[in-house]
């Protein structure tokens, strides 16, 4: 029988890769705003900082969903729910939306009008609150649904992802109380505040509406923190429990892995990332619009996880960056170039989902484990084939 060795067991190359890959991502990520704003017109068109900020937001979402889908193997088609909770939390706590509260509550905030009513908290206070709110939402949604298996779980989460935006769309007057301001959304929210960094000379109290550079660094920092959490969790006891559940739930239970609690942790942590990303999204745009929260979002984030490489943090980052760029800039600019060159008038972004579909099909055919597969999955096809062979032989 052929011996399948563990990929790169304890060699120098592996150790180098363990340092080099994160370093590459860190340096590459940090240098983006400098490179993009210094090179000139070409980059502004092809790599605008607005898109780079969105890339950061989607990296956050993808990492969050990766914990649920990649680590724990729970197919969630309603990730948009957590995005929604994060965004509305920021909307509620960083604007004059609750004008009933007058005089308003102001804590380290950067509201334009320091006497404005409502709850005005600093973004940096809202981030953990949004994470907790989304995590609680995750646990509440998860508790009744996580007893279901695979396809059924996917369907129920899909349902939640549809119900919640509808509820918020119609949440203008819940017995007279305005929860979500319906289709009008919540806004404007207070600008991102960087007052706590003022001692370094970098931060200002409120960042400029056009200051995408600061926005980029903020989401970048949030992502780095969540990446560290992801990696730490993966290598810890919880990570092993998730892996066991993904492999074989029954066997995991026999090993003493508490199924419900372990799955709820995955949901909670994944949702927290959705909440943080949502809060930042809201503040970055200066408001929440309920139309943002649709099924497409859940699917696109799932695509990012699959394209990049399930259960591999760096793969997920790559998948998120590439797809976000393609979505918000790539399609449009490629279309423009084609049209300019050939004098045609094709609207390339219109074919976005056709191209997405083709890419996904090709991925499933030729690179099923994503662009950067998790080390554990790398040989899975090879092993699957061998398992099958052994299964038919039965005896050895």
């Amino acid at each position: 029988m052929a011996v399948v060795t563990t990929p790169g067991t304890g060699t120098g190359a592996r150790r180098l890769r363990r340092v080099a890959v994160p370093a590459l991502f860190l340096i590459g990520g940090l240098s983006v705003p400098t490179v993009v704003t210094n090179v000139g017109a070409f980059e502004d068109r092809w790599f605008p900082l607005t898109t780079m900020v969105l890339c950061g937001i989607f990296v956050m979402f993808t990492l969050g969903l990766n914990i649920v889908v990649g680590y724990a193997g729970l197919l969630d088609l309603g990730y948009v729910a957590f995005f929604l909770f994060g965004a509305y939390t920021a909307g509620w706590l960083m604007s004059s939306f609750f004008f009933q509260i007058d005089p308003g509550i102001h804590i380290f905030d950067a509201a334009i009008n320091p006497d404005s009513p409502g709850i005005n908290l600093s973004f940096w206070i809202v981030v953990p609150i949004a994470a907790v709110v989304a995590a609680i939402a995750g646990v509440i949604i998860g508790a009744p649904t996580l007893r279901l298996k695979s396809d059924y779980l996917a369907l129920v989460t899909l349902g939640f992802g549809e119900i919640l935006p509808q509820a918020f769309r119609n949440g203008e007057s819940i017995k007279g109380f305005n929860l979500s301001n319906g289709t009008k959304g919540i806004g404007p929210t207070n600008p991102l505040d960087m007052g706590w960094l003022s001692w370094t000379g970098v931060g200002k109290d409120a960042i400029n509406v056009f200051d995408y550079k600061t926005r980029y660094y903020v989401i970048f920092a949030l992502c780095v923190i969540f990446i560290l959490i992801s990696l730490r969790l993966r290598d810890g006891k919880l990570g092993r429990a998730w892996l066991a559940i993904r492999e074989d739930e029954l066997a995991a239970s026999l090993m003493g892995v508490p199924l419900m609690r372990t799955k709820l942790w995955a949901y909670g942590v994944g949702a927290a990332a959705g909440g943080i990303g949502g809060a930042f999204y809201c503040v970055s745009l200066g408001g929440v619009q309920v139309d943002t929260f649709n099924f497409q979002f859940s699917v696109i984030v799932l695509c990012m996880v699959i394209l990049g490489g399930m259960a591999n943090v760096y793969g997920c980052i790559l998948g998120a960056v590439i797809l976000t760029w393609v979505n918000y800039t790539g399609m449009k600019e490629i279309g423009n170039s084609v049209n300019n060159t050939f004098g045609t008038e094709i609207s390339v972004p219109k074919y976005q989902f056709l191209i997405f579909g083709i890419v996904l099909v090709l991925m499933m055919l030729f690179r099923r484990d994503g662009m950067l597969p998790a080390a554990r999955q790398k040989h899975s096809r090879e092993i699957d084939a061998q398992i099958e062979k052994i299964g038919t032989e039965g005896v050895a």
Partner: protein
Amino acid sequence: MATNAHTGPMLKVENIHVYYGNIAAVKGISIEVNAGEIVTMIGSNGAGKSTTMRAISGLIAPRRGVIEFEGRKISGMPGHEVTALGISQSPEGRRIFGRMTVDENLDLGAFLRNDKDGIAEDREYVYGLFPRLKERIHQKAGTLSGGEQQMLAVARALMGRPRLLMLDEPSMGLAPMLVELIFNTIRQIREQGMTILLVEQNALAALDIADRAYVLESGVVKQQGSAKDLAASDDVRKAYLGG
């Protein structure tokens, strides 16, 4: 450990009824396992052996009846809590974690434990029991042969340092030589003082190493007694041992 405080049988299954949906798989089975014994449940397909075992390990709750382990009621408890009390199971069909290495499988067997030294000790012990596993320590478990996978399933269960070890069909799909090897190891494990509940279709092999046995048929206990007597009984010989 609180083991000694309890007198009477270690495991007591009292008149349990287990259903899959509306289908009764177990219709009032009672068994007892005393500390230090090997007890086996034999019977043909669909007799309710595996279902009884599943009920004991908390994978499915009996609709009626009580299961007690060391005097504590465990029926209705979720699986991980039963494991925490000291019952480990090597499930039917092995169910090892195919994409993890042999060593990682053993790690998961010790999932509930925090005693690093004890875990290292037990790892050595199971590798001693199954030297073939030690040779394949970093190999993905899914690529092991059937016999090796069975060894791993038993080893993994032992890593929980259980007081009751339950083995579901350890001989399934194995060549006679490997069956003998597995059963010899079971004997060896018992000599270390382990209590074992064994479910088997291979009645001959099971009766050979067991102290007592229960013969199950269509969800009820048909016969019970010492393994030696049952192996000699005409009914059992005719039904399960081929004359």
